[in-house]
């Protein structure tokens, strides 16, 4: 069986940053790229299924849509396990929103024919929480969002998933494969990828595709293929903070005073 794991190299923001001149994004100087935290968990979940299976029984393939630097994220995954990765990029893809990203990933999935697709519940930069669900919609596959526990043995034709609902409620459902799952933080304890492992993963194969290779036209990707586009980014006004210093007693006194002031004002 095969599991495809959609992973994303996200942009992490400095505490102090500036916006790009066109005002549509952050100045790339202030961005560090790293793997989306959720994807560490979804990849770990895939690794565990792979390890539970016999030698060569389960294949896991990380896939990303992103430029060259996104290879780093794939390698971080491959350092932990898996033999090959796929990256899709060309300039036309720039400006894609989750619906366009999902359209690309759907094509990859149709080609690879995995039994399961894992995506993170959301990504820590844009927080759309839509890519996974949009993939499921594109494929017409069963899906479950925000999975925090997965019971699956390699070879089974269905999986049992637990989902976290509001108010501490948990839903347990069984889902037929093939299916798309979006994985929530805390489902497992992701392992550490040592730098040596990451370096050695350089010898593993990463296939690079363009949207054309997948049979998509320019209109399917980028801004043209998206349902939304960024018009402007702004930094909201910050509220005033006060640093409270002194001994614990002095600090407590000050806090009490502030509470009183606010109560008085309300």
């Amino acid at each position, binding site marked *: 069986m095969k599991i495809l794991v959609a992973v994303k190299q996200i942009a*992490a923001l*400095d*505490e*102090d940053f500036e916006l790009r001149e066109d005002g549509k994004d952050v100045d790339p100087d202030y961005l*560090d790229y*790293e793997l989306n935290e959720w994807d560490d968990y979804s990849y770990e979940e895939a690794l565990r299924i792979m390890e539970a299976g016999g030698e060569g029984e389960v294949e896991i393939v990380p896939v990303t849509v992103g430029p060259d630097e996104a290879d780093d994220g794939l390698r971080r995954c491959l350092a*932990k396990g898996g033999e090959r990765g796929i990256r899709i990029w060309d300039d036309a893809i720039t400006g894609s929103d989750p619906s366009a990203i999902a359209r690309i990933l759907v094509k990859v999935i149709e080609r690879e024919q995995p039994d399961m697709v894992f995506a993170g519940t959301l990504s820590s930069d844009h927080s759309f929480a839509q890519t996974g669900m949009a993939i499921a919609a594109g494929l017409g596959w069963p899906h479950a969002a925000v999975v925090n526990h997965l019971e699956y043995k390699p070879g089974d034709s269905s999986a049992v998933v637990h989902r976290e609902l509001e108010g501490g409620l948990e839903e347990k459902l069984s889902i037929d494969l093939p299916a798309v799952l979006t994985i929530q933080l805390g489902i497992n*304890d992701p*392992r*550490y*990828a*040592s*730098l*040596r*492992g*990451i*370096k*050695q993963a350089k010898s593993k194969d990463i296939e690079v595709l363009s949207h054309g290779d997948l049979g998509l036209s320019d209109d399917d990707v980028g801004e043209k293929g998206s349902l939304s586009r960024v018009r402007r980014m702004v930094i909201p006004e910050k509220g005033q903070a*006060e*640093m*409270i*210093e*002194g001994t614990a007693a*002095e*600090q407590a006194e*000050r806090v009490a*005073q502030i509470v009183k002031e606010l109560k008085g004002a309300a």
Partner: protein
Amino acid sequence: MIEPEHNSEEVTRVLFQDFPEWMVVSFYIVAFAAIAVFLYGCYVQIRKYRRGASVNIKDIGHGIADMVKSMLAHKTLKRRDKAAGHAHALIFFGFALLFIGTSIITLDYDITGPLLGLNFWHGSFYLWFSLVLDIAGVALIGGLLYMMYRRKWLALPKLDYARPDRSPEDPDYDRNSYRREDWAFLWTLIIIGITGYVLEAARLVWLAGDPTVWDYRWWSPVGTALAYVFQGLGMSAEGGEALRLYSWWIHGVLALAFIALIPFTKVKHIFTAMGSLALRDPTPSSRLPMVDLEGDKIGYNRITDFSWKHLLHLDACTKCGRCHEACPANATGYPLSPRDLVLSLREFAADKLEKGSLPKDGDALSVLGDGPNQIRSETLWACRTCSACVEICPVGIEHVPMITEMRRQLVEQGDMEPTVQTALQQIQKKGNSFGENKRKRPAWTKKLDFEIKDARKEPVDILWFVGDYASFDPRYQKVSQAFAKILNAAGIDFGILFEAEMTAGNDVRRVGEEGLYQHLAESNIETLEACDFQRVVTTDPHSFNTLKNEYPEFGGKYNVQHASTLIRKMLNSHEIKLKKKLSNNTVTFHDPCHLGRLNKGYDAPRESIQMLGANLVEMKRSRDNSFCCGAGGGRIWTPDPVDHEKPSENRMREAAEIEGLDTFVVSCPKCMNMFEDSVKSTGNEKNIKVREVIELVAECMGLDDAPEPADEKSTAEA
């Protein structure tokens, strides 16, 4: 010496005197059997070592010379246990002389006599020989008696074999077999010694009528005294003859059995300890073993991954317990004792590698796990790589490199505390363990009223490598500022690397993340190579250690100094001008492991403190016996559990015993971090201040922080 009426050749001891031939033959059969068993045992041991990984031994000549020196002086054995060291010297030299003596007899009787017709064991040589061996026997028995007394009545905790890393339910908890072996060893040797004298005395009683024996009796003073006792008790010549025959056989068979059993018992430490000392790396903890990252494996997982040298080290352990006693993890209830780690590995190696063939299933060779004699990951992660164990081990065992090698495997398998994982990930991403942005690294300099030179842009005399904790820890930032002010006031030409500096990686390497360490070392060296400077100075002993001892292997060869050395020099040369002295202060100094034990930097901070006029009182454990603050080896990234004492609390309580102590002086950012906590958690906050040597100097120079501006205060008081 020899009376004129006696033929010198007759003044000797006739071997096998009056033995029937079958008895002599039986003796030779027993002797050859013993030697065969001994040789087979040696073969099994050597085969075991050869199953370990290969290793480059540098400078073996030097190693052997050092080993001989420390053996003759018994230097390593006398440290921190003088009495045991002296007793061991008595046993060692007594045993060695007796062994040489017996070999001389064999040489004369079985080799040079029959082959060359050359016999020399008679006359005055024989008499001197007798006297020396008689004294050697006294030494041996005296030493053994003290050791028995020590084991039985001193009840030393380091000898009780209690294990912190196992609970009584575990199958490998019980170490009583060691205790039995210890006693069997002592009793066997002492009986060999005593039967030697009995035999000697019985022979004298028997041959009292033979002047070539009796006239020279006082050359064997102990045997003669005992012979008088026997005679006093009414023993006849015939009685002496019979006793001599019995005691001869008991003595002979025991001695041969002892030799036969050497390779199978703790007695083998005679050889393994010598080997271990000769092969010891002089800097095992300050320069950890290099790794080829391209190789197909890393670290120690299987027992066969251990170098043959480390396998030999394991067999050298004499269970003396010195490391067990010195280990801060063991002292504060963590599941680690360096002694038990070594002994578990030794049992494991014996179990897997002494058989004719290796187990078919390679995984059965893995030393990492919860099974019998395996090493648990919690044990490995409890180590602070403080090197207290390596420092005191009398036989030169290298615990720290072995622990690091095993951790390298754990890191590769991702088996570590989540907090350590987070720290390593932060370092991978940002080059510092605080997860702070690179740009924030020099933020502490903003509070200074002068600019620090950017060593990347202009030449400097001193390149100050600041390090992670000195850059980001809010408490230690004050020390960094004070150091900058001192250098500035003294007119020193210095600069820093600002955001280009990455953590030096000392602790990353000690955690076992070798790939990340090498990346950090290479990146920092690349940055340093592009700068123009004369020497590197750092306040951080961790950075100091790796820059000085480990960077050279990556091509970064610099003149590296710890700040305390620079401070002492500037105090001596009056580049530092003191406006006041600390004559009213009673202070103590805590040696940071990486400055003290690992780099022998004991004196510079002490002399600096004394030049400031403070009354420096030492703690009980100081210098090479300093007790780690608990932060080393990456432990700073794992919060200590709240339910038992932290090493830093143990240490602070020790300091608090000093009467009138007002200042606990540190010389390391990580120590500072640990002790600022423990001074509070042990309730000593009111009486004792934790301060850096640098802060004391700055205070005496009148460079302390100006009183806080009034407006900040008013916020706190409003």
